[in-house]
């Protein structure tokens, strides 16, 4: 849970080999809710960035930014999930993912730990979940004292529409 997550790197550990029954996720926190993103889909984690607003873009598109010469589209996850925007108390971070050869930065509140989760703890999305959330999650992991909603990155990105 380091604030300076710019340099976070995840190296494959020897555990990987004998741990085929589990997957690694980066946890992110939005409005107190913990989400997980498959670690292999993550390109980068960014601190606060200079973002250029894009006029006429969908409201959840926060703008675009420059990541080492590539243009990254920033998506405000709070707005995408229809969560009230926070009032700037917490710092903002961006998790960069790639979808169809394009980079997207998911603007979130905080980055949490990287968790290795066992497949047996995985459950599909409950049908009672808010349809909006159900659309963008691929399932839920039961953690000890909370639930981790897994973000389906391709779905999440491709359902942003004008």
């Amino acid at each position, binding site marked *: 849970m380091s604030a300076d997550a710019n340099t976070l790197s995840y190296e494959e550990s020897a555990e990987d080999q004998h741990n085929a029954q589990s997957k690694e996720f980066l946890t992110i926190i939005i409005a107190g809710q913990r989400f997980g993103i498959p670690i292999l889909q993550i390109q980068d984690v960014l601190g606060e960035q*200079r*973002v250029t607003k894009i006029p*006429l873009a969908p409201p959840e598109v926060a*703008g675009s930014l*420059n990541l080492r010469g590539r243009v990254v589209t920033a998506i405000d996850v709070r707005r995408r999930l229809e969560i009230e925007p926070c009032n700037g108390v917490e710092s903002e971070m961006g998790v960069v993912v790639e979808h169809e050869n394009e980079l997207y930065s998911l603007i979130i509140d905080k980055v949490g730990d990287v968790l290795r989760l066992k497949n047996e703890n995985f459950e599909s999305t409950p049908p009672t979940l808010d349809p909006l959330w159900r659309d963008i999650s691929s399932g839920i992991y039961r953690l000890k004292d909370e639930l981790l909603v897994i973000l389906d990155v391709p779905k999440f990105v491709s359902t942003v529409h004008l």
Partner: protein
Amino acid sequence: MDDLISEFLTETNESLEELDLDLVNLEQNPNDEDLIGKIFRLVHTIKGTCGFLALPRLEKVAHHGENVLGRFRAKDLEVTPEYVTLIFECIDCIKMIVADLESNGSEPEGDDSALIEKLDAVYEGRDGQDSGDGGSEAAPKEESKASEKASEGGDNITQAELDALEEAFNSTEGPVNFAENVAEETAPEPEPEEVKEAPPPAEEGATTTKTAEKSVSSQSLRVSVDVLENLMTMVSELVLTRNQLIQILRQHTDSEFTTPLQRLNHVVSDLQEGVMKTRMQPIGNAWSKLPRIIRDLSIELNKKIDLEMIGQDTELDRQVLELIKDPLTHMVRNSGDHGIEEPEDRKAAGKLETGTITLKAFHEGGHIIIQIIDDGKGLSNEKIKAKVLENGLATQEELDEMSDHQLHKYIFHAGLSTAEKVTAVSGRGVGMDVVRTNIEKIGGSVDLKSVEGKGSTFTIKIPLTLAIVSALIVESSNERFAIPQLAVRELVMASEHGDNRIETIKGAPVFRLRDRLLPLISLSDLLQLKSVDDETLQEALADEHENTTATPNEGAAPIPVKDEISTPNEDGVPASAEDRASTPSNKEQVEKPETDESRQREYIVVAQVGTTDFGIIVDRVFDTEEIVVKPVAKILRDIELFSGNTILGDGSVIMILDPNGIANHIGQIGAADEAEANVQEQQLETGRRDKTSLLLFTAGNNTPKAVPLSLVARIENIDVAKVERSGDQMMVQYREQLMPLTPFDANVQIPENGDKPVLVFTDNNRSMGLIIDNIIDITEEHIDVQIDGGQSGLLGSAIIDGKATDVVDVGHYLQSSDKDWFKDHDDDPFGGANDENGKPNGRANGHTKKRVLLVDDSPFFRNMLTPLLSIAGYDVISLESPHDALKMCDTGAVFDVIISDIEMPDMDGFEFAEKVKTDTDWKEIPMLALTSHATQKDIDRGMSVGFSNYIAKFDRDTLLDTLSQTLAENQQNIDKNAQGDAA
């Protein structure tokens, strides 16, 4: 080796590698339609190309393989491991032939009938494993002889048999008689040991392929576009880092880093340029194999086809080029195959026997347009309808409602081909949908226009993506945007007061631009940019003031996410919806900051799209920059106002405005013709008032100076630091040329650093810059030079805008900066000065120029010729009618030459000349007739009344030549007469 073949080999080897992987994948995911489609296309491409390269053996194998894949694609054959193995065999056979081709330059001898037989058996559904009854439906038209043989084999093809056959393939080296081998190997009992033995020879085969590959690839280096793309990205990063370093260094003068950094600077610039260059290629490269393809096609199909190519030099980003290469080939092939008719049909239709396919490439409005035009039979609506119905893509009712254009679009649909026969060339419906997918992949579009019986035109429009363009960076509501320079006509500064103000008609802003009404659109309204809250605004303003000297770009730094999120109410959907509803109140908000000190001025970017002009109101204008256009993210592609985005030198991302999109948005395209008509009308009107557009500026002292705007090519701000000196002459590198700079006069102060406005005059690739102090305005006035000041460089003084203004003699500066300036015209307007000193013609004011009287009733020509003659160094008086001229004669005015129009109301040129030549003081003055059309009779009559020559109105060079010649002759006559008198 033939270029075409070697290119084919490299391409095919790549495809084959891909195929291996894809087939393995297919085995695991037998229902992956995309994958089947991809494999099908790869094989199809190999087959198609072979056909043109005359590689019959390869083509045959690929063709039969494709047949089977076609059934997979049509979903009437299930993908089973057995079938995949069979396809593998087919691929291996292709590999073997290709390897041989690579090493020997020709196809190996050999017989693939056993393989083909098996492929056909599957294709025709005789292998017993066929689950569907589609076989009869998709029955092949060829190879019917195979069926007898196949019926014996029937459902006997087993895994063992296939393995054995595979082994037979693997163990063969080079040309081999397959039939024999297969016959031996297809023993009913499988022999597992043999199968185990198979791998080693297979490896051997692989190595031969590799070595052969090396031999071809050593001739040229194929670099993957990704590598270049990566390189480009890294260079961009490097540039940014360098810029930061330079910034830091500016604060430390006399640092030991200065010299190395300077060197780094140069190297990085060169590197950037080099990398950029690697990406640009003329489109001709993609066309080079088309003539051959068309030639072969015309022989094969017995047609007569001409291929015309226009615009080969149009440069394209290599990535785009690579991606459109195949679609283009496909489309040209299609045009030849489906479009152009047989010679007999063409004759019957009253066309030339030879059909023409025209390929055209050009830039238009920031896009690259490629057109493929054929004069063939066009698309048949009936056939498309039938096909669409057959494929269940639409109902009869829907079809009836459709326009031709909508109907034609169906040809881009997968699986639809209107070719009646499935030929080796086309007809499988694989072409056009691939074309469309590939073009759309790069953000382009493809469209077609077709008239049945007349021909078709396919238009591929590729946006600027990836290309490098020069763009103007502007700012509105603290956000920066780039406007492609191509669309920008001029920049106008509008002030709140005075003549240059923006007026509104029921809220719609308009601007009077040289007596034309220019519709305006505010960028901040257009993009619904909200006025930022006061605090942010103040901050931004403070920034702006701070940074005006150092880095103006920084002032417009985009607000960090934090701010954006913390002011949520301004950003949300509801807010923007509100904005649209309550425009008036929002407008007030927007206007408020404008009353602020820094917002008193607005800039209008005058843009042109097609024939439509409109102005975009922006807050600030920065520099023009060369930008690398990057496509916008897919989720933003629907915003038509942007054509891409880019990363600026300071690392920030900005959006590139699409002038076409803006024009569409304000709904002006439709009114274009009207606008054009208006323009012409207005131009005439403008002329009638007989005013000249003048650029007002100051230089040296405070007296305003005026120069005709038509003479000014550009107004530039030139960085004084970039000015170089050669002797006494200042010069600057401008558009890759050296441009001499002349200060307006000695009083113009040139500071040590900073920018200085420069008026650029251009003629025939030559430019000169006149250094001045400030631009005041552009105005339209009748120049009435009242006081003829003796100062060189000034024509005199006139009242302009209510102030005494010096009218600048541009000719003087052109002459002084470049002695050769008038050489082209073979005339020396200033040379006659000495001769004239002795003449009693009242040139007491020291005027040394030849005086020309221009009489023409058309204000347009007066306006056109007056500056032309002034530039050439003549002193021109233009009058509307001969009556005025005669009056002027009575007042005693003297000219060196009179140029007169012929067709004029009241008194025509002939009459005028007669009058002048018979009883005025001007009878010695040579007269030139100016006319737009002259018959010999007219010329004779003209000569008889006293004109010394006839000049066509539009022929500028002849006019100048004749003028100087006439003057010289006249001078000689005068001299002679003077001598005669003396004698």
